[in-house]
């Protein structure tokens, strides 16, 4: 293969290294002789990536089409014939992108359908509003028009407004009915009532040949409400799609060896305890299993938080999530995938999620308090006006005006709009927000707990200086053939280049090969034969020269200290909580300027410490990446994970940041706090608006059209206030 720059050609996005192999074969769908596969691609961000990926995959045998959707990071490949799907994912990882097959039985179709339906309704409502206004508005400014023309124009309005309202109102009607069936009142009940009553009474007036009809009010109302609904649905779908992509990155296929010794790729969910699995180098274990054959090194960083790989041994119990680094292993499954450690953690997450859902849908909670009062006000207006001798029609019109003017539009838009704008702004900085309501929680956090490995530090070992460039180049020729984290660190320092001849991996010990006809070895101190050494060292020896030593360290993120200082200035207290040893945690804490730190914390004690802090009334923001942090992330008041985090942790977090800088953590809090003030302003404005508007409507001074206009104006104010968030400069702006 020619030497192509790994990952995004723009070099703005770092290549995805350490991607884990998994056989995509079980996820291929067949239809009419064509095979199709959907793959989640990580690290693709520009037109260069698009061209590079589509070209490379398109050149594989039999591939009919390869199309990458850059918006959701999915590659759809269709081919004819016997192409091994593994070659597609291998091509992608060879190019420097992360690749994982997407389970076709795991669709986000319902979310897509909801969003699409709301979009169509929104467009229909918009067009209907414009056209009803064209027909209805002239009547307001020509009072001397004759009755026949007026009625004709009313019927024309009805012709547009009735079908449009019936179609665009459906999402609201359905939601209102299902809410009533559960014996509750949500926002959609008064909305549906207002729309139906306005249309019904307008029709009655038109039949009677009356002076006023309010068809325009009902479609305009629906149009503005649909804007809020659509934005909300879009944010939800994006969050779900991202979560789904992360789930796909978890191993979901395994190689099973049947009774006759034949290997077969199957879905992880189909594995039963006792079955024999083959775990090739680079694969991640999907179920808890016991080693029965083979020799290798195991990277357990995701499970235990320890950076250094361990050598495997016969009878060793491996937890799901462990990565096999060098040799092939035969393992016996101990538990089905649904009962593995990963799944246990996933269940913990769900429990934590449920705790958080108390904060969900602030708008709905507001509606529950607000809606009955609106209904009462409208009913009072109706009865009151009747008592004071008004006609039934007039009383009904006042009641409709009250319903429309108090329509919870501004309240409905207040939160989702701010969330969309804030999420967009965070996205520009490489921060992905999992849910809109997370902002509310992040904004109120007062205590930050960092994990060490992979969070405060970069997670991958970095070569410490003190080596000669010549040795590095020679060692890299061996290291390029190995997946060991130390080898990868050497390659990262040396860059691309050639690979030594007759490479041989010695599981648990090192790599050997021939360089210029001389035997070279790279590996542990015993393997190289250099005497005594340390486990965080890698030795390199070539025939005819003395062995050289490479040292590694887990380097702290470059701006960790600055970020900790910034957080403290923002009034948050900072703590370090790690599963690693005392010495290393203490050193990292000192370097980052954190005074409160705990080392050797087990996953459960992390979660317990958090629980304890939260019962004391602290609102904890957890920043962590490992499987050992997942429970703490899920249980915390709010949580943030770095992009390199283990999948369950990313799924458990409220937001994920990418890149090497930790500044994102402070940025998120800053933006969340700004978003929170915008939301509060919006709610305050909406309350004030109602305070003024309801008496006006009750007094009968407003018509339904004026009510719809006032309601729209209040929505516009709320929207503009939300947009204010996108422009405001923040300290620490990267550009």
């Amino acid at each position, binding site marked *: 293969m020619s030497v192509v720059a790994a990952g995004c050609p723009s070099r703005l996005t770092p290549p995805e290294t350490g991607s884990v192999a998994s056989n995509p074969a079980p996820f291929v769908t067949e239809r009419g002789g064509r095979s199709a596969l959907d793959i989640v691609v990580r690290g693709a961000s520009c037109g260069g990536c698009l061209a590079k990926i589509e070209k490379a995959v398109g050149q594989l045998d039999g591939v009919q089409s390869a*199309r990458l959707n850059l918006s959701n990071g999915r590659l759809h490949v269709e081919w004819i014939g016997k192409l091994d799907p593994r070659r597609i994912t291998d091509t992608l990882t060879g190019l420097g992108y992360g690749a994982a097959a997407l389970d076709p039985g795991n669709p986000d179709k319902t979310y897509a359908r909801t969003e699409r339906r709301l979009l169509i309704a929104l467009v229909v409502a918009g067009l209907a509003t414009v056209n009803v206004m064209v027909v209805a508005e002239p009547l307001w400014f020509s009072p001397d028009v004759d009755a026949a023309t007026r009625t004709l124009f009313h019927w*024309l309005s009805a012709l547009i407004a009735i079908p449009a309202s019936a179609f665009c109102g459906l999402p609201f009607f359905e939601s209102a009915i299902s809410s009533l069936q559960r014996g509750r009142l949500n926002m959609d009940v008064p909305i549906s009532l207002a729309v139906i009553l306005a249309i019904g009474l307008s029709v009655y007036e038109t039949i009677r040949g009356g002076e006023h009809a309010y068809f325009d009010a009902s479609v305009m109302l629906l149009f503005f409400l649909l804007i809020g609904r659509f934005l909300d649905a879009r944010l939800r779908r994006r969050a779900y799609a991202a979560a789904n992509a992360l789930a796909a990155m978890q191993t979901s296929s395994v190689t099973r060896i049947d009774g006759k010794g034949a290997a077969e790729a199957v879905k992880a969910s189909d594995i039963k305890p006792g079955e024999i699995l083959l775990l090739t180098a680079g694969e991640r274990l999907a179920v808890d299993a016991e080693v029965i054959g083979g020799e290798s090194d195991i990277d357990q960083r995701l499970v235990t938080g320890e950076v250094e790989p361990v050598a495997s041994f016969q009878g060793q119990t491996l937890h799901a999530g462990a990565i096999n680094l060098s040799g092939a292993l035969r393992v016996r499954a101990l538990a089905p995938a649904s009962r593995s450690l990963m799944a246990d953690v996933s269940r913990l997450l769900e429990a934590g999620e449920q705790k958080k859902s108390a904060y969900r849908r602030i708008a709905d909670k507001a509606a529950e308090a607000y809606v009955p009062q609106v209904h009462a006000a409208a009913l009072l207006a109706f009865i009151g006006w009747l008592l004071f001798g008004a006609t039934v029609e007039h009383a009904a019109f006042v009641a409709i005006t009250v319903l429309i003017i108090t329509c919870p539009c501004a309240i409905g838009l207040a939160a989702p709009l701010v969330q969309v704008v804030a999420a967009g702004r965070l996205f520009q900085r490489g921060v992905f927000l999992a849910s809109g309501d997370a902002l509310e929680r992040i904004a109120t956090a007062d205590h930050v707990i960092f994990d060490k490995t992979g969070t405060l530090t970069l997670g991958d070992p970095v070569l410490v200086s003190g080596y000669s460039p010549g040795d590095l180049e020679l060692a890299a020729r061996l290291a390029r053939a190995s997946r060991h984290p130390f080898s990868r660190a050497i390659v990262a320092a040396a860059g691309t280049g050639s690979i030594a001849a007759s490479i041989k991996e010695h599981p648990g010990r090192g790599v050997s090969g021939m360089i210029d006809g001389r035997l070279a070895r790279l590996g542990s101190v015993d393997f190289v034969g250099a005497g005594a050494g340390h486990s965080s060292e890698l030795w390199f020896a070539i025939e005819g020269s003395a062995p050289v030593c490479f040292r590694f360290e887990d380097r702290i993120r470059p701006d960790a200290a600055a970020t900790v200082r910034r957080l403290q200035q923002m009034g948050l207290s900072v703590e370090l909580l790690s599963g690693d040893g005392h010495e290393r945690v203490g050193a990292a804490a000192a370097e980052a300027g954190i005074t409160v730190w705990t080392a050797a914390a087990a996953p459960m004690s992390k979660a317990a410490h958090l629980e304890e802090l939260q019962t004391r009334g602290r609102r904890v923001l957890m920043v962590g990446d490992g499987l050992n942090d997942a429970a703490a992330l899920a249980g915390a008041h709010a949580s943030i994970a770095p992009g390199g985090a283990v999948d369950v942790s990313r799924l458990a977090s409220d937001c994920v940041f990418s890149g090497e800088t930790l500044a994102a953590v402070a940025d998120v809090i800053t933006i969340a706090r700004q978003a929170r003030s915008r939301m509060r302003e919006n709610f305050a404005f909406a309350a004030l608006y109602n305070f003024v508007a309801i008496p006006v409507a009750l007094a009968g001074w407003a018509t339904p059209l004026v009510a719809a206009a006032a309601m729209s104006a209040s929505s516009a104010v709320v929207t503009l206030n939300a947009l204010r968030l996108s422009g405001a400069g923040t300290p620490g702006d990267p550009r």
Partner: protein
Amino acid sequence: MSVLLYMIAAALGLAILALAGFLWALRSGQFEDPAGAAWRALNDEDHPARE
């Protein structure tokens, strides 16, 4: 007065045309990948999707 009716008919017709155009764009997947479409415009070697 009848001229107004023609105007209204024309406005309605245009609205229906616009709606049809929008639905066509939605069906043909033009809103599926806005980010990719922006980049593809700059790509010399791009070919239309083969479906």
